[in-house]
């Protein structure tokens, strides 16, 4: 066994190195370019094989059994079942407008937008299902017997209701969707269940929600103060410069400050969501603080900037490592009872998710 480099005190550990990952990611990039992007399905698979196999859960490594071919098939299916009809609808709606049925044409043209809204939720569900069903631990996999069609509907109305009450129900829609999604997943014979409570993250959300108002009020006071200070130093001209400088500082603060507060909310949400997720007698927790997330994101930006963009190939590595290093689990697993999952597996990959370009977790 080769677990010397792993954090032995944690249930999860990661022992990959970016140098080894580069040996996978760089040829992947080359092959993706020369195949006009088609290789990216196989590239994703190879990256995941590396990341999964360098991830330890308790005393055994994970294994990724997905294939590039099934991702490719998923993509082709989405193109045939979704992109082509959307293209056709655009054609018909344009033709309707051209013939004077403007209202019908515009209405028909909006249909794909609704479809995308529904499919976003469906895609998120199915991507999670796909990833669990292709993850092996001690030969055992996860999955779900649910197709996610109902989740797509939930996603639509919960997201809608979340924004309805001037956005105050967004934390509820986020936790409730997390609970619903994970509640339908299983690994081996056991189901996951999640009871994330939006009450626990509401204070953080209010901070995010109210801060723009505080910023503006504070900003006006600051600008006035700056203007006065400028007046004291350099008369009327000084007042102008002072007020300008204050506004400038305020603008920077507004963008970065709001960004930081958004991250603070997200960090809290993630701790609450993962921390209330269970799998039989095992419960999970996520340790990343707001500062950890900020460091991750600033690191991402710096890496991409200083490599003139090439560094983007390491982002999936960094994010996976971040997730695993902050993920904890405690409780008992009875290996004798941990039998193979009987859930159905889809033959195709996460085509929808790929088409909409969103993350699974």
């Amino acid at each position, binding site marked *: 066994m*080769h677990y010397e480099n792993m954090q032995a005190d944690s249930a999860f550990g990661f022992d990959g190195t970016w140098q080894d990952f580069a040996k996978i990611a760089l*040829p992947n990039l080359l092959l993706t370019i*020369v195949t006009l992007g088609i290789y990216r399905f*196989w590239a994703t698979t190879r990256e995941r094989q590396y990341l999964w196999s360098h991830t330890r859960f308790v005393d055994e490594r994970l294994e990724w059994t997905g294939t590039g071919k099934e991702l490719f098939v998923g993509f082709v299916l989405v193109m045939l079942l979704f992109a082509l009809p959307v293209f056709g609808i655009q054609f018909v709606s*344009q033709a309707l407008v*051209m013939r004077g049925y403007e209202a019908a044409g515009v209405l028909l043209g909006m249909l794909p937008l609704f479809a995308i809204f529904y499919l976003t939720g469906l895609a998120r569900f199915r991507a999670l299902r796909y990833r669990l069903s292709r993850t*092996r631990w001690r030969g*055992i*996999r996860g999955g779900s017997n649910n197709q996610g069609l109902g989740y797509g509907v939930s996603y639509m109305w919960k997201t809608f209701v979340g924004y309805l009450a001037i956005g105050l129900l967004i934390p509820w829609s986020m936790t409730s969707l997390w609970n619903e999604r994970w509640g339908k997943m299983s690994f081996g014979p056991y189901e996951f269940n999640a009871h994330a409570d939006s009450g626990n993250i509401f204070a953080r959300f209010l901070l995010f929600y109210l801060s723009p108002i505080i910023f503006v009020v504070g900003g006006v006071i600051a600008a006035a103060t700056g203007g006065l200070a400028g007046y004291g130093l350099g008369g009327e001209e000084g007042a102008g410069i002072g007020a300008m400088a204050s506004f400038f500082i305020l603008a920077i603060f507004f963008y970065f400050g709001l960004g930081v507060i958004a991250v603070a909310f997200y960090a809290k949400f993630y701790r609450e969501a993962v921390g209330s997720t269970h799998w039989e007698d095992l419960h999970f927790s996520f340790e990343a603080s707001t500062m950890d997330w900020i460091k991750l994101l600033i690191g991402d930006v710096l890496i991409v900037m200083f490599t003139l963009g090439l560094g983007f190939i390491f982002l999936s590595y960094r994010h996976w490592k971040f997730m695993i290093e902050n993920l904890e689990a405690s409780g008992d697993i009875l*290996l004798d009872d941990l039998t193979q999952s009987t859930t159905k597996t889809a033959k195709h990959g996460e085509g929808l998710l790929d088409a909409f370009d969103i993350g699974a977790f």
Partner: protein
Amino acid sequence: MESSFRTPAQWYDGHNAIRHEGEALWDGSGTLSLRGFSSELTLPFADLEFGEHRGGEMVYRRASEPDFRLILPEDLPPGLAAKLPEKKVYGGWIDKVGLGKASAAFAAVSVAAVALFLTAPDWLGPRVPHSWERNLGDAMVGDFGNRLCSTPEGDAALAKLLDAVDPDEQQVRAGVANIGMVNAVALPGGQVLLFDGLVQDAETPEELAGVLGHEVGHVRERHVMTALLRQFGLSILLSGANSGVGDTVFGLASMGYSRDAEREADEFARERMEESRVSPLGAARFFERIGGDSEAEEDSLVGWVASHPAPRERAKAFRKAAEGKTFAPVLTAQEFEALKSMCEDDPDVEEFDFFF
């Protein structure tokens, strides 16, 4: 070479999560024996598949038992290693030919595919049957209903003008669109529209004959189909680049022709006008006007100028075509007037407020 040996091994049966530990024994035959406290198994080598190479270990699967996993140390004796399935890195035949050669082959195929894709409109466009284009055009733009101006006298004048520049048995469909812009377009399906703005701007019927001939030229030389295919390809490329769907650009209005296509259309117009003894001087004057230095005029003509070759050059070509020839007027003053007042006199013409 050793013909038998034993090595530590771990395996999972794929039915539960219990790890079996023991030894893998090989006696030189076609099978591998696994011996442990909790499990004993004999596997034919032919049933084994390569799984992955991870941190000092090799993982093998069984074809007959998809979730079975056999984990062996990576430093196996060469005799056994030769019996086990080969390691895969990139998968498929990339491993066989090597990364360099595979990349070169992919690149060659990709370059050929891109070249084919980019040039497809030029060689495919003219080969699309006229009937298909007509059907496609009808599906896309229809007949514009009541948005085209129509009076009996105006229609007759327009038909006469069209006869002069489109002698074909099956003529293109021409109409005057109720739009104030100085412009004219050729649409899929052999439809040509003169905008009322252009009709009002024209000083002689010969100017209109020139412009109409030019647009008919686009239809006859299959430029419309070519441009349509190019637009179509572009929308595929754009939707592929961001791998998102829903924001395909499919704007007829943004359809443009190459300068060569514009020259070809001009040439077509000149040839037809010569056959019908229509003076090309009208068209020449039109181009002189839009290429002229009067700012107000340039402003109103910006739509036509932007997508076309230098007007002075074109005017010169039209002027040259007139040298040493005599012409007959293409329309009478009365007919020209009927064409000019067509939109005003049509009692139930509708506005064209969305399209161009």
